[in-house]
């Protein structure tokens, strides 16, 4: 099978790509260079953000978010008395000894469990509806640890396998924990563990909705969860708060560069430079990210748009309902139906507001 089928088929494709296709490839970076590319991008925005926002709206929102997060980063930089620009502050944080304290991988796992314990009382104040699926933090298995990212692995439907938050620790001597509170909120609680487990546990959902995934909703929820840190009693340490800002910045940059590449004639190089100027990632990491946006127009918009939409719905409900606003019920309304397009989530929340007034 491999020798007489798979390899010949790959060889044929490989020869075509090297001898013919590469030469015919385009020099443009954006999808707008293709026929119907502009309407394809509009479709991609709708598909991935599940809203009817325009590319200009998203681009401008990205610019204002990048500016806002930058100024918050400046505040942290001043708070810890660092003299220098943001770029050198990024490097300083990444190499700071006090943020690389662990000698043994178990300490990393214990620290996550401590974060969990610390916020539990406040979780109970903010969330009435919580999943029954058990939860665990584990170190990523060694065979895949080197190339793995921190991730959430959903529990089984029958409850026999817990939801697992996997943390790769390929080298303990280099493990910087400045974004660990943020990471826990996103991947674990109240992020993906709450969101995915509640969707799986909801027995009244028809089958097609049990496995439904919209990243605007799922990743939007996880990013919204990151922004709950202070309410949950976390981010007291300025570096942990800086960890959240760094993660948020990465998602805000995506709004600018994705729309820049696909509707504003930004080259791959211009997008790489813009990212390098605004975040603490390596050039090779940024290059893969930009090429990912080129390959999948619009997908990267979903995270930040989802977060902003959920925050906006909360803000609206708080403003209209005032004393009658109950954060527990708001969170229940957002989570109980599982993944839904944000347009429909908004309809649902609006209906709840009207019925509660």
């Amino acid at each position: 099978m491999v020798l007489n089928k798979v390899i010949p088929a790959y060889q044929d494709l490989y020869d075509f790509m090297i001898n013919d296709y590469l030469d015919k490839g385009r020099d443009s970076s954006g999808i707008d260079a293709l026929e119907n590319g502009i309407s394809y991008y509009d479709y991609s925005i709708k598909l991935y953000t599940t809203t009817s926002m325009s590319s200009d709206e998203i681009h401008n929102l990205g610019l204002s978010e990048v500016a806002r997060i930058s100024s918050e980063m400046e505040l942290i930089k001043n708070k810890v008395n660092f003299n220098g620009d943001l770029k050198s502050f990024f490097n300083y944080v990444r190499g700071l000894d006090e943020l690389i304290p662990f000698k043994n991988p178990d300490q990393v796992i214990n620290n996550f469990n401590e974060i969990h314990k610390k916020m539990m009382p406040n979780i109970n104040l903010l969330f009435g509806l919580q999943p029954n699926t058990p939860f665990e933090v584990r170190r990523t298995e060694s065979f895949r640890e080197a190339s793995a990212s921190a991730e959430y692995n959903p529990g089984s439907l029958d409850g026999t396998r817990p939801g697992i938050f996997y943390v790769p620790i390929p080298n303990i001597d280099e493990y910087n924990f400045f974004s660990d509170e943020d990471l826990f909120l996103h991947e674990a609680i109240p992020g993906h563990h709450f969101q995915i487990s509640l969707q799986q546990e909801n027995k009244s959902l028809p089958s097609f909705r049990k496995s439904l995934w919209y990243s605007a909703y799922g990743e939007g929820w996880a990013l919204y969860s990151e922004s709950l840190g202070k309410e949950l009693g976390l981010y007291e340490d300025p570096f942990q708060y800086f960890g959240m800002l760094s993660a948020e910045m990465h998602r805000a940059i995506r709004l600018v560069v994705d729309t820049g590449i696909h509707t504003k004639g930004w080259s791959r190089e211009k997008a790489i430079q813009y990212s390098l100027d605004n975040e603490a990632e390596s050039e090779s990491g940024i290059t893969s990210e930009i090429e990912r946006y080129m390959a999948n127009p619009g997908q990267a918009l979903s995270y930040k748009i989802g977060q902003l939409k959920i925050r906006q719905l909360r803000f609206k409900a708080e403003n209209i309902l005032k004393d009658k606003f109950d954060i527990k019920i708001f969170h229940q309304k957002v989570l109980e139906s599982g993944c839904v397009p944000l347009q429909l989530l908004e309809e649902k929340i609006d209906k709840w507001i009207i019925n509660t007034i």
Partner: protein
Amino acid sequence: MNKSIIIISFFVFLFLSCNSKEKSSEEINKIFESYYQESLKLYPLSATSQGDVRYNDFLPNNLSDDFRDKEKLFYNEYINYLNKFDDSLLGEEDLLSKKILLWECDRNLERLSFNEHLTPINQMWTLQLDMGQNAGGLSAQPFKTINDYNNWLKRIDDYVIWLKDAKKRMKEGVESNHVLPKSLIKKVIPQLETILNTDLETNLFYSPARQFPSSFSIDEKAILSNKVWKYGFE
């Protein structure tokens, strides 16, 4: 698919003749379930990744005109069924499910109006990468029983057809200026190159034969190793 459409049409007919709230809920949930079941057959890799083993042995060629027509028919049919239900007779969750499903159908029909199939391969999230992961034996495609191995060998036959069609579609893309950026093509080429390796110890697609379950007999392992490396199904 046609058979189930007839069955559904029958349900919708029944339902229209007695429209109460309770009946509406029962009938629309039948539509939801049949949509889900048919979509698993249409997109069997998705069934595999959900742990549903029923369709592990095939992979439809989603680049073919036939398949794209089938998809259009599928989504249009479901829009028609759903639109037969009166919103005022649906409870809140059923109405939400109806709207979500309409949203799904609409986005898929929009997708089919574009020419995504002319750039079937990129470096990031296209089929050859999913199949590579499955071939590694540590992803969704199971390799626990002899049957699992035979399913995979059959699925590979379909995949080889897909690879041939991918090249054909990319050639069409060249004709109509619908191609990938050069910078991305340069990332795909080395990914394809790794598969050309003829070393049994390291070829990714030979991985399942390097990690047989211990329950297989020596004879079974020998036969399967040979099949995975050389023969497969015709």
